Structure formats: structure tokens, C-alpha cells
């Protein structure tokens, strides 16, 4: 009788341990891609915030349709797609067709991480972060709300100007997307017929990485790795 009751106790323990250990708490915002209702074909003419001309950042002309160079690129794409790793497929799902959402999520996480008030010195004065030596205590930046607001403003206008210029070039070069040029290539997201050169995802990644690296210099490597992982979604 006694042995029996102990085994019941043990069962209860294991049931409890089992049920409460498995809960995974979400470490990223739950967000899935969606279809754009409109491609904003004339967005290349929108008013820029930081730049004065939509060709202020020069871009070389893409390889011509039917050229050996382009065919080679298409073959490379097919090979990469056939060899995609699970990490690359996860990256496709993570970034979705609107990577702006993830870059803003990254920006807010960094703002939270660096929102730490410097501890006072023994004499009661307060040390100030030094942008020239960001890793010295107190680390740069102290991402208080005004700093965070400024950071988000820089990030948003860089993304905005970048996309306007990208749209301008897309409709200038009219380079069809790989899945339109070769039916064996599958788009990772909804086919929307948008011209593919330059890649809007690459523009967003580069602009976001560079602005955030300037605002959070200690996160240079982390941001570079994030930007690299976005390349995986572009195909």
C-alpha cells in the first residue's frame, strides 16, 4: 500500500515537470507575410527626405536579358534554391515579404537593451557614455527615450529614401524577377510581378544595418549577421 502511494506521487511529479518544462516563450514578434494590394508604380517619384535626387546613389545597369551573365545568375539561383538549408528556409519565414517589420523589431530590442541609466560615481556625479569609446562603462549609447526617438527617425527616413530610390531604379531598368525569367525558379513569397532590380529587401537591409550600426556601434557584428541572413530570403 505504501509503495503504491509513492509511485502515484512520483507519477504526479513527472506529470508536473513534463507539462511545465515544455512551454517555449516567444522571443520574436509573431508576424506573417501578406499580399500588397498595390505596387505603387510611381513611388520612385515620391518626395525624398534626406536626399535631393532619386539617382543620388548611382547604380550600374543590370546584365541584359538573355545575356550569358544573366543566365549564369539564374542557374546560380536554381542551384542555391535546390540546396537551401533549413536555416535559410527559416530565414525566409522570419523576414517575411516585409522585412521593415523585423528591422523595427531589432531596433526596439536594441533600444531596450541599451536603456540602462549610468550608475553614479562615488562622489554622486554621473558618468556620460563616450561615442568614441563605446565599450567603456557606461556603454554607448544610453538609449533613453529621446535617443531612441532619434534613432527610430534616422532608421525610418533611411528606409524610406532607400525604397523610393529602389523603386525609381526598378521602373527604370524593368528587370523581371527571376521566377518570371525562368519558370523553374519559385519565388519565396507571393508572386506580385514587381521588378527585381535592385532588390528592395537588400536596400532595406543595408540602410537599416548601417543606421543601426551608427546608433549602436557595439552591435556591429550582430547587425551584420542579421543583414547577411536576409540575403537568404531575397530569392
Amino acid at each position, binding site marked *: 500500500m505504501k509503495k503504491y502511494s509513492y509511485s502515484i*506521487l512520483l507519477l504526479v*511529479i513527472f506529470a*508536473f*515537470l513534463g507539462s*511545465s518544462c515544455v*512551454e517555449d*516563450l*516567444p*522571443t*520574436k*514578434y*509573431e508576424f506573417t507575410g501578406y499580399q500588397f494590394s498595390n505596387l505603387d508604380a510611381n513611388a520612385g517619384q515620391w518626395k525624398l527626405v534626406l536626399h535631393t535626387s532619386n539617382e543620388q546613389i548611382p547604380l550600374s545597369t543590370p546584365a541584359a536579358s538573355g545575356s550569358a551573365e544573366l543566365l549564369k545568375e539564374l542557374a546560380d539561383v536554381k542551384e542555391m534554391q535546390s540546396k537551401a538549408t533549413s536555416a535559410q528556409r527559416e530565414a525566409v519565414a522570419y523576414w517575411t515579404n516585409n522585412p521593415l517589420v523585423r528591422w523595427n523589431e531589432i531596433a526596439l*530590442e536594441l533600444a*531596450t*537593451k541599451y536603456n*540602462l*541609466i*549610468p*550608475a*553614479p560615481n562615488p562622489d*554622486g556625479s554621473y558618468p556620460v557614455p563616450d561615442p568614441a569609446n563605446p565599450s567603456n562603462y557606461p556603454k554607448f549609447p544610453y538609449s533613453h527615450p529621446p535617443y531612441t526617438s532619434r534613432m527610430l527617425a534616422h532608421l525610418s527616413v533611411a528606409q524610406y529614401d532607400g525604397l523610393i530610390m529602389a523603386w525609381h531604379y526598378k521602373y527604370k531598368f524593368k528587370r523581371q524577377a527571376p521566377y518570371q525569367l525562368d519558370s523553374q525558379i519559385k519565388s519565396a513569397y507571393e508572386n506580385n510581378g514587381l521588378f527585381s532590380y535592385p532588390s528592395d529587401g537588400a536596400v532595406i537591409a543595408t540602410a537599416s544595418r548601417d543606421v543601426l550600426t551608427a546608433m549602436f556601434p557595439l552591435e556591429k557584428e550582430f547587425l551584420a549577421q542579421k543583414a547577411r541572413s536576409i540575403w537568404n530570403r531575397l530569392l
Partner: protein
Amino acid sequence: MKNHFRFLGLLCASLGIITIAHAQTPLDGLMMPKGEICIALQYDQVTWDRYWEGSTIRVNQNIGTFTRQMGMPMIVGGITDKINVILSLPYVKTEASAGQLTGVQGIQDLGISVKALLVEKSIGKGKLTGFSNLSFSTPASNYLSDYMPFSLGFGANELGIRAIGKYELDKGPYFRASYSYLHRGVTEAERDFYYTDQAYYTAKMDVPNAFLGQVTLGSWMFKKKLRVEASLTTIKSTSGDDIRVYSMPQPTNKVDFDRVEGFAQYYFKTNGGFGLIASYQKAISGRNMGQFSGYGLGITYQFKAF
């Protein structure tokens, strides 16, 4: 701006659970005979004016001196000579002497615990006893756990399993050691985003599990009317993050501490009736925890119920 805009704190959340009264606790080496019931009323007060933020000791002018009081009714019953059940329901009150944050009070966690005597044998001039204990506690009111250090408790279920060994000389002195594993569930905050060493997009917080070890030297005196003890307790969380620089603690923090304690219990009669308890405790080292010290007083009444 000085310190006026910074509030921080320290967390004593686990304290409420750990300082469970001493009359006959999940951790001690006593058993009630079949049919005996002991009712206890225990009062504990701990204070601190410094706390460990990670392993850094801090003073906080927006806390001043922090006080945590606990009143706890407890019932221990002997189901058989070898199985006891312990029920407890603490009422906790917290306050700080400075700053803008107000304390709270209310019913904390309902604790249910079963203690079993597994080994009992005479060795030399004494007796060796071994116990096992299984405990469960769950929040008994809808308190906010993410309000540290003021929160009443950590706001999660806890399952504890313990092994207790005691060697007692016939003359009175005894040595006791125990080791416990405390498994905690998740608690719910009132914000859907928080940051530990990474971001979480949920209101649920994982409360770290912990190991608790205790060694005790004690003795019976005056024909078993008085019992005195000195003990060392150590708690180590198995996971968790440190309180961030000058930030509030949160239930996800890794709470560790070592505590010394003195304890005395006096029985007016040797079998049943009233008893009195007095204790003193002090933290000697810690992590993400107040450097607390305090005392406890209790009254017990034991009677034969069936």
C-alpha cells in the same frame, strides 16, 4: 536628477516561501503522531537597505529601508505516525521607507506539503531518521508578481521535493541536513514585452527553478521543553538573468542567497499544549536579492484530534 527618477529594488519574492514558519515545517525533522494536530501562527519581519544587483551591492534612495512582514497560519496534522500533512497560507505586507512606489499586502500562496518518515533506526547512542517531503504551492490571490521587490510572491506554482536526514543523540543534540529541488512554473506580468538577456514577446515569465540546501545543529534542553537550532541555508537558482543596472528586478531573475538563522522553540508542556517560537535570520551573501535580516515570532498549539 539624482536618484529621484530611478526606482529599483530587490526581490524578496522567494522569501515568503522560504521563511515558512519553523514550528514544524517541510524542512524540519519532526513528525506528529497519528491524530495529533498542531496549529501555528507565525509572524516574520525582514528588512534591508542594501541589495545585490547581480553580485554588485547597491543602496537605493528610492527604497530606503525595505520591510517585508508575513503573518502565517499553519496546520500540521498526523495522518499516520509516518505521514504528516502541512497546510499554510501566508499573509504578506511590503513597504519601503522612501521613494514613489507603494507597498502591497494580501494573501500570498497556499502551501500543501506531505512529509513521510522513511527511515528510523538506532545507531550508537542516538537515532537516525530520514524523511521525504513533497510540497506544492500556488498563488492564493490574484497578486501582481511583476512588481518587485514589493510583490507578495513570485506568482507561480511551485513543486518541491526534499530529502531530510537527521541524527539525534539520546542526550538531546542533533544534526540535520536537507536538500530540496524547487520546480517553479510561469507567472503572468501586466506587459506583453520584456527583456532579460533577450527580448520576450509575451506576458508570461519563466520563474527559475532552485536548489535549496540546509544544514542545522540543534539540541533539546530542559527535558525536551526547549529546542534551539542554528542553521545555514543556501538557495541557488538553476537559471535566470541578473537585475539590469539600476533597473527593477523581475520574476525571471536568478535569485541566490546564503542565510544564517537561529531558532528556539519552547513547549510549556512536554506533550501537547502551547509552545512559543522565536527566530532570527540574516543573509550573508546573495545575488539579485535584498541583504535582509529579521526576526520571527510564533505561537503553536498542539492537541489530539482523533
